[in-house]
């Protein structure tokens, strides 16, 4: 049996909006093992984004517990969460979220800067990941000089550079056309085959098909949780 990367127990998040309390996530129990590729699906308002923020250690739960890679992270302080994000999670966002004025290389180096890695080592590791995503010849380009697909690949390299336990992709294809979307999903699939645990948040069914397991959220609870038929085998 492989190790659990994510384990949540009764994970709950309430927001107070004016006089009303919004129960965005109402007690989610979820376990994700090392090496899994899970798509978290759900319509808007399903609590999917709130759940993802907690999984990504960007937000803390109102109640319930969350273990990431064996460490209980549900009751950590902001700065402790920042260190967990830095060491264990790689983010790929819908809007890329690259620093526009920095080169691709510097963008990829960023997590390592906050990890305190020396400049030579940083450069080496960032170059390695950029080569992995096929951007060896674009390292000195800045995001505005790149296509959407290239930018998202820089983001993937950045997400991988700290060798994270979890790669968390939030609607990664939302700003890409269908061809680039397919390329990116193939890349994520390859990474997963190499052993990378990936959680993908999306509302597009055909994107979710690329994952091996789908978790559907509705009204803040898990509605369905099932294994995909292996897509690659069918092709």
């Amino acid at each position: 049996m492989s190790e659990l990367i994510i384990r949540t127990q009764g994970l709950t998040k309430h927001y107070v909006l004016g006089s009303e309390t919004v129960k965005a996530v109402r007690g989610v129990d979820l376990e994700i093992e090392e090496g899994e590729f899970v798509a978290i699906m759900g319509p808007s308002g399903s609590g999917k984004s709130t759940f993802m923020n907690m999984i990504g250690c960007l937000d803390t739960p109102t109640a319930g517990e969350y273990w990431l890679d064996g460490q209980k992270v549900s009751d950590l302080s902001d700065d402790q969460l920042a260190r967990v994000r830095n060491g264990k999670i790689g983010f790929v966002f819908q809007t890329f979220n690259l620093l526009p004025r920095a080169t691709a290389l510097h963008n990829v180096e960023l997590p390592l800067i906050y990890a305190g890695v020396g400049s030579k080592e940083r450069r080496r590791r960032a170059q390695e990941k950029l080569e992995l995503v096929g951007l060896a010849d674009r390292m000195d380009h800045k995001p505005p000089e790149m296509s959407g697909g290239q930018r998202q690949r820089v983001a993937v390299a950045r997400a991988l550079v700290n060798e994270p336990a979890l790669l968390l992709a939030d609607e990664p294809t939302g700003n890409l056309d269908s061809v680039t979307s397919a390329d990116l999903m193939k890349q994520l699939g390859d990474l997963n085959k190499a052993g990378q645990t990936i959680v993908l948040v999306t509302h597009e069914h055909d994107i979710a098909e690329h994952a091996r397991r789908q978790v559907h959220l509705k009204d803040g609870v898990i509605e369905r949780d099932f294994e995909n038929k292996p897509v690659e085998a069918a092709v």
Partner: protein
Amino acid sequence: MLLFEIIAVAMAAVRANILRSVLTTLGIVIGVGAVITMVALGEGAQQRVEKQINLMGTTVLTIRPGQQFSFGVSRGDAQMSVEDAEALKAGTSGLLKVSPELQSRLQVAYLRWNSNNQMMGVWPEYFEIYNLGLSAGRFFDEGELNGRRRVAVLGHAVPGQLGETPGELMIGQTIQLRGIPFEVVGVLEEKGDAAFFRPDEQIFVPQSTAQFRVMGGRDRLNAIYAATATTAELDRAFGEIDRIMRREHRLQPGAEADFNIRNSADLLATFNETNETFTMLLAGIAGVSLLVGGIGIMNIMLVSVTERTREIGIRKALGATKAAIMTQFLVEALFLCVLGGLLGVGLGYGAAALMTRVAQWDTVVAPSAVVIALVFSAGIGLFFGIWPARRAAILNPIDALRYE
């Protein structure tokens, strides 16, 4: 290592918006420049006066008429006469050199030249008291004083004013003081310009001649000057003068004196006090612009934090702690202020040099003023940078990432 990276990031942000950065620092530049210029002016004035007082001699006591009191009520300016000077000379023999000073501004004529100068009726000791030297001729002597002789010693600049250079050509010539002929016997060396004392444009004649031949017998003295041989004797001389003057003026013991005795050190202290107050005032006003500059920096830093909300969100999502974000923005504010401070020091030096050249004001840029101004501007950077930096540090990464 991390700190170095954070500094590099802050520098990059300053460089990325170079025009705005320079405009932002302008307040600090002007503030620091103004403070340095003002302090340089004050320092320059002080050094100049100190130099002058040293030139005048540090052992000179000046006795001037004060207010005259009768039953505690002022009856206007008191008078000092030549008898006072004579009593001082007789009563302190050996201790003091004494000379009265009768002063009158009058018309001076030489051939077809005319000039308006100060005539000083003095005793021969006057030249010793002020340590005046001759460039030509001789001083007048005791005999000429007693004989009310019409002889004159000219200040260094006077021959030039009368159209005769060099000065030695004036020796033996006759000049008219208020129409009365005087023989020029000597010309003084250049003494330079001093605030209270400018012998270069004065004409010195025996006191008795001035009193009886020019001023119609009037002997109301402008001042009596006395000098000791060494500064150590000043206190004793002070007491002696006070005692004799009180006796001469028939003052009751304990009554308010109707004269003032001042030594040059007192003058210096008084001047320094005024000068310091003035310098502080000017530097204070300049300091206000430094404060305004600091507020400008804070303003721009707040704008910068808002503008870069998304960047902050990205950095936090990737693992930047509050301290890392805070340091980044603080270093940026600090850098802007120190940059402004350095430019301001340059501006201050330039302005001070310009004032010296254009207005002939003495300025001295003290290194301590430069250091204080720089430290102060760094302090302003820290103080006004903290609030924006804190705002950046406590941003919620989720909100910051969503910020458009």
